[in-house]
């Protein structure tokens, strides 16, 4: 029975490996991107280390780094003019000996795509590990990790991969040294009191989330078979939405003109974004996310530190009718301002 369950886990890992272009043994299952990021950060940084990140990052990076700062890690957060990554600033920061650079591929606030390959190359050329947070891009953008200058990559199961919530993983490039976050039984080397070195056992102590992992494997297979085409419709809806609401004088748009992932963040005059989000839900049945999106520095960068923003995200199941409903709701709210 246990062996049969392990076969399902292997099948899911191989499916994901194929999708990401990497060996399945280099993939660790976690409960979400946050856990994967924590494993990568706490597993490679300690007193005397130095890490460089950016102001557009999510709290899943910023909060572990704040905790690590308290443990003697030198943390530099690069400003992000206009919500973009400035490669010259990164290059300057890397003149100091740096252990790791951690950056997201796509902003969860604006949907802007950061130059992952260039940033990774700068980091590796400077002798630093490059950790990519691909939470917003995996499934939406082509991502062959073996062809990118990436040492570690954290990802969720439930976003672009369409898998179950509560699943995720971390890619660890072969040769990268990392300390585990969890220690315990792995079903291997059971006569030893030390955590095994072998991948992926080293980082997967305890009973795995079998139903979640099986769901994630099925999702990866679905994406692999159909390709990024499955998100084309959502991208078109996002692009049309952006174009139409940008013309309304009461609306401020924070997302790039060309929508690369189907996320469009806006504000309605000076109205509190959480209030608008609840109105959209209660009175128009349009589900959005208001507030700071767990990215306080990104919002300060955009000048929305107190207002937050209303983020519209189009997905695989959305239709033209949903788009029209969302635009109609935006127009109706604007009329009341």
């Amino acid at each position, binding site marked *: 029975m246990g062996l049969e369950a392990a076969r399902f886990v292997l099948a899911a890992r191989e499916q994901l490996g194929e999708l990401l272009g990497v060996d399945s043994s280099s993939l660790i299952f976690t409960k979400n991107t946050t856990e994967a990021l924590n494993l990568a950060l706490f597993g490679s940084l300690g007193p005397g280390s130095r890490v460089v990140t950016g102001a557009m990052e999510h709290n899943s990076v910023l909060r572990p780094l704040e905790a690590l700062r308290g443990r003697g890690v030198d943390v530099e957060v690069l400003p992000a003019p206009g919500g973009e990554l400035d490669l010259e600033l990164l290059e300057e920061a890397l003149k100091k000996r740096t252990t790791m650079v951690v950056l997201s591929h796509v902003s969860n606030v604006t949907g802007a795509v950061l130059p992952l390959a260039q940033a990774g190359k700068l980091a590796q050329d400077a002798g630093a590990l490059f950790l990519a947070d691909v939470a917003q891009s995996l499934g939406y953008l082509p991502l062959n990790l073996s062809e990118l200058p990436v040492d570690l990559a954290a990802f969720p199961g439930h976003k672009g991969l369409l898998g179950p919530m509560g699943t995720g993983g971390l890619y660890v490039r072969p040769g990268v040294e990392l300390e585990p976050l969890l220690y315990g039984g792995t079903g291997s080397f059971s006569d030893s009191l030390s955590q095994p070195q072998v991948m992926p056992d080293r980082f997967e102590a305890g009973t795995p989330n079998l139903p979640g992992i099986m769901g994630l494997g099925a999702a990866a297979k679905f994406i692999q078979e159909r390709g990024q085409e499955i998100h084309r419709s959502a991208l078109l809806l996002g692009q049309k939405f952006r174009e139409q609401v940008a013309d309304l004088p009461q609306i401020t748009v924070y997302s790039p003109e060309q929508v690369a992932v189907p996320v469009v963040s806006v504000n309605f005059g000076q109205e509190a974004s959480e209030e608008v989000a609840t*109105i959209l839900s209660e009175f128009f049945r349009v589900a959005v996310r208001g507030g700071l999106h767990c990215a306080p520095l990104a919002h300060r960068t955009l000048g929305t530190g107190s207002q937050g923003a209303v983020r519209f995200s189009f997905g695989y199941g959305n239709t033209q009718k949903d788009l029209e409903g969302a635009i109609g709701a935006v127009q109706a709210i604007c009329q009341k301002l």
Partner: protein
Amino acid sequence: MSLWDKFANTSTQRALLICSSTHHLLLAEKVLLENGVTAKVVPVPGGLVTHCSSGLEFPPSQEAQVRELIAKSGIAHEGIHLL
């Protein structure tokens, strides 16, 4: 009049319980509804300094009962505001 009030057509005075997290907000909603308080999750109006973007609206006449219930249930909250 707030944007929310324009849609909700609320003109009478309301009381708003602000909890410390989504867990405590939803726990409070359950406890209040089970005890006959007319409670509803609504957005916290701009201007109220809080870490939680949603609160529980209820009739001000039930404030004493609400205070007793949340104290008894150990619900972490930031305060009750009259709007």
